[in-house]
């Protein structure tokens, strides 16, 4: 079943367009091929796909950590790296620094003193429910709390776009649900743009207003699914028939994408 790309309702201005973007690594692997994708201001867009479909590569291209072999990234207006927040698969915290200093880091690198940064850091920690943990070091925190610190650090510079690379993949389900809820709450309050890489159908449908399904070998956009369910989404939505139907729809598209992916192996990124 080939799904025609759909557009989400409620058009907002474009933030970034990937036009015919391709990436070929020096070992000959084509990570991405002819990717066309428009990201609009305020989108919560999930990139969903099997391993090896190039979703992490796409994220690194958007972040500017890597440059495309072909095609262009067309930003609306000027965007520099200060406007981009990035949350990695692991919390990626400085193990020797406490929670406050970890969140302060992006501001510190911009030359903002501890005292000047304190209000922003404190506010961000409150937003991720970590008030009171300022002096804890990462090893004293649970996996979920570390991820909260990581999100606070990415958000402390008030980026226009937040890129998340399977941030909750290593967490247990209860923690993941909680972080999903808190992330949505944060996004609704601030209305920044999110590009969220995941291989979980359920997570992508719960969070996003747009799910872009990718296929592998070579990595490409397979189809797009608009998730029109209203926000705020909560536990009621998670157990609703609508959600189940959307998950089934996304799952069907994903299965289709996997079947069209060349080669029998689905390992590695």
């Amino acid at each position, binding site marked *: 079943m080939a799904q025609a790309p759909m557009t989400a309702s409620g058009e907002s201005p474009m933030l970034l367009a990937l036009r015919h973007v391709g990436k070929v690594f020096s070992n000959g692997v084509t990570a991405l091929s002819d990717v066309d994708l428009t990201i609009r201001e305020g989108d919560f867009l999930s990139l969903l796909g099997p391993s090896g479909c190039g979703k992490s590569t796409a994220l690194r291209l958007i972040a500017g950590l890597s440059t495309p072999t072909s095609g262009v990234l067309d930003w609306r207006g000027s965007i520099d790296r200060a406007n981009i927040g990035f949350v990695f698969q692991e919390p*990626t915290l*400085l*193990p020797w620094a406490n929670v406050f200093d970890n969140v302060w*880091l992006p501001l510190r690198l*911009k030359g903002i003193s501890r005292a000047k940064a304190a209000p922003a850091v404190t506010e961000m920690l409150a937003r991720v429910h970590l008030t009171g943990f300022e002096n804890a070091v990462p*090893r004293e925190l649970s996996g979920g709390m570390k991820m909260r610190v990581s999100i606070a650090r990415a958000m402390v510079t008030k980026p226009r776009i937040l890129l998340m690379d399977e941030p909750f993949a290593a967490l247990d389900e209860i923690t993941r649900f909680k972080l999903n809820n808190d992330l949505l709450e944060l996004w609704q309050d601030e209305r920044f743009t999110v590009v969220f890489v995941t291989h979980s159908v359920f997570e992508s449908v719960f969070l996003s207003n747009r799910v872009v399904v990718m296929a592998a070998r070579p990595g490409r956009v397979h189809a797009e699914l608009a998730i029109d369910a209203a926000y705020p989404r909560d536990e009621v939505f998670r157990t609703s028939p609508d959600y189940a139907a959307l998950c089934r729809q996304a799952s069907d598209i994903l299965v289709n994408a996997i079947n069209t992916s060349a080669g029998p192996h689905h390992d590695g990124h």
Partner: protein
Amino acid sequence: MTAIEQTVLTLDPEEAGRVRQERLERIGRWVLPLAIMILAIWLWDRVCVWNEIPKYILPRPGVVLQTLYDDAGLLFSSLLVTLRITFLSLVLAVIGGVGLAVLFAQSKWVEMSFFPFAIVLQVTPIVAIFPLINIYVNNQTVKLLLCAWIVAFFPILSNTTLGLNSVDRNLRDMFKLNGATRWQQLRYLRLPAAMPYFLGGLKIAGGLSLIGAVVAEFVAGAQGQSSGLASRIIEAGYRLNAPRLFAALILISLTGILIFLVLSLVSHLVLRRWHESALKQER
């Protein structure tokens, strides 16, 4: 586990056994080596008595202790001389080792070009190099320092280089994303990340700088130009003064142990909050 918990908990036999085992191990860690040491000293004393060994061949432990007390002035002033060389060379080894490692970290090319020379310096026995140093350097202290430095700086250089290069790739990307300068990356990321490696190197270098200092004094002392502990040993050897020889030897050993303990403590204090090596094992 606190005392309060223990009174409330009723432990099953397996857990009780484990607690007992832990307590025994904790005591054993100190008592066993001490007991063996005392036994060995006692045996040493007995061997001397049973075989009527003269004290210029093997002095009894009591005699060594008496010498340590009687010759304290002489021995400790010599110890101070040796310690001065040891610490100065350790400080120089830290400055040189870390400085070179930071230089190497700036560029793979620099590291590739110069690291082999550091290895050459390390693998050539210092005793073989010393005669050359003796020709080129006049100042006695500088001579000894150079010797001890050559022996001590390599573990710091090699460990710190390894540490500076073992930064998590995502963290490096994160710094890049936030537009960190080279200096910021070094200051806030690479140097702290290298700290456990550096401290590991420092522990080795501490012992080596003492060895370097003593060996240098030995070579220099053979020419009657040194007043450190090594020269006391040579002197005592010439005079068949075995008790003083033993006393000096014990002083050097104790100094080495002390240096190791102090550096271990420093390492523990610096790393105790975050690094795996300094954390207590939890079950």
